[in-house]
């Protein structure tokens, strides 16, 4: 249950000094993509913050989002934050099972009516679909969501499935899957997309709510601008190569080895908005592009149906998604110029290596 202890008190009880707290705030500012000068303001706000109750609902999902959250480099700021929110219901993480688990949810809802946060991962069969595709304790996902959000302060849709429908909604969508925002109209919905989302982005959004008691500024897809405000392409460390027209043409050519731009290998960075390029993964160790792999665009709506993962954006996708077609067209316009510049380099790359090309890989798949 949510306690009346403030975060400042709670941390000091755990033996955290004021310097430790300042450090925590500096890391939190970094995590929330706020300027470092905000750390004192965060410290002041957090001193007074009370632990909010959080109910986490998992529907049609693979638990990847929870994995992302819990397998982050622990124990660290995430854990601190999870020590200081009250996670009252989470299928995977809670010890209680069966009736006791459902009672915990109901009790959290009653005790904290109007104040608790609902976090959802996974899409759910819509109101017109067969509810039997996904149930918990005999309750359909749809009924559980609608019942739980009734007294919620806000809903956070974690992962692309919850935010946009994700894999379950991909063509032909056998379960009639819909996203949280398709159903929740009378509560604020924050979409934290990604497959899975960057762990620090999940906790950053929760931290912002905890710190300021307000919801973050959102983009047109309901995502926090602090993390989804810039494209992967704009923040990519390989961008200088794109600007010079230097592209890897296959996964093992000289360009790939030299760390050139992965645009022609299908990188969706130009149309993908996420924080991977700066926050990175696994404790800041690396991220897909740094590992030599093109961005799949997993934080964008309908990315599963966006054509091939290894097709350059300038290749028509034939996707029915309007959003992706528009984004693809913009990418194409940009890509053609750069593509022409790199044609000679492409020929050279092919000369060096002709073992596996992106197209061949696509055929094999």
């Amino acid at each position, binding site marked *: 249950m949510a306690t009346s202890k403030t975060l400042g008190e709670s941390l000091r009880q755990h033996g955290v000094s004021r310097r430790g707290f300042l450090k925590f705030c500096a890391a939190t500012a970094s995590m929330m993509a706020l300027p*470092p000068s905000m750390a004192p303001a965060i410290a002041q706000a957090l001193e007074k913050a009370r632990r909010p109750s959080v109910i986490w609902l998992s529907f049609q999902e693979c638990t990847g989002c929870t994995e992302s959250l819990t397998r982050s480099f622990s124990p660290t700021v995430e854990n*601190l934050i999870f020590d200081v929110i009250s996670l009252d219901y989470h299928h995977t993480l809670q010890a209680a099972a069966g009736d006791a688990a459902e009672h915990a949810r109901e009790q959290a809802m009653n005790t904290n009516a109007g104040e608790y946060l609902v976090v959802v991962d996974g899409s759910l069969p819509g109101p017109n679909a067969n509810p039997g595709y996904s149930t918990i304790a005999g309750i359909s996902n749809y009924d559980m969501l609608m019942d739980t959000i009734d007294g919620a302060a806000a809903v956070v849709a974690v992962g692309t499935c919850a935010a946009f429908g994700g894999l379950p909604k991909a063509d032909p969508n056998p379960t009639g899957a819909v996203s949280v925002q398709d159903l929740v109209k009378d509560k604020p919905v924050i979409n934290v997309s990604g497959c899975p989302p960057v762990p620090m982005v999940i906790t950053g959004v929760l931290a912002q709510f905890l710190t300021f008691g307000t919801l973050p500024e959102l983009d047109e897809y309901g995502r926090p601008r602090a993390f989804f405000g810039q494209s992967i392409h704009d*923040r990519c460390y390989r961008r*200088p190569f794109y600007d010079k027209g230097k592209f890897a043409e296959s996964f093992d050519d000289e360009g790939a080895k030299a760390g050139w731009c992965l645009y022609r290998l299908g990188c969706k960075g130009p149309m993908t908005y996420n924080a991977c390029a700066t926050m990175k993964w696994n404790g800041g160790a690396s991220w897909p592009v740094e590992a030599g792999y093109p961005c799949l665009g997993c934080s964008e709506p309908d990315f599963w149906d966006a054509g091939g993962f290894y097709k350059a954006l300038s290749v028509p996708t034939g996707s029915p998604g309007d959003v992706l077609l528009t984004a693809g067209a913009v990418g194409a316009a940009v890509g053609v110029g750069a593509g022409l510049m790199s044609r000679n380099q492409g020929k050279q790359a092919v000369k060096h290596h002709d073992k596996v090309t992106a197209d061949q890989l696509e055929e094999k798949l």
Partner: protein
Amino acid sequence: MAELAGIPIHIEQPEAEPQQFGNALPILNEIRHALARFAERAEPTRIDLAAIPFGPGDEARLMALLGRGEVEATIDALGPTRVWETRFPGVWVLDYANVEGERIALQIEIDEVPQMLRTQRADITDSLAALDAALASATAADPAAESRH
């Protein structure tokens, strides 16, 4: 069966110089502007390197350019925070790690002394009370103390 030596394995030697993606120099320029602001108006600046798109080698290049100065300190609070002045006085690097030694933030601070190293006001008040308490209990336990008053 082939001898181990007969299996053609080609080991690429690591490059002598770390690979560079050209993302270090713009930060050095930003630091220069911040230092100029501090020189003119004593306005401190903090730069969060987590927000900078660094490729492999970029950070090493920046740190090599900044070098090490005279001062180095470690703060033991929620894991170690290493602080050092670069070879440009007034430009500090703060490397925050958690209790497992993994980095949680990396910042450049342009100031006389980084905020983290200063003792906070509230701590000084607490410190005075703690010292008074220590003095009182030490005095009570010391039989010779009475005669010294």
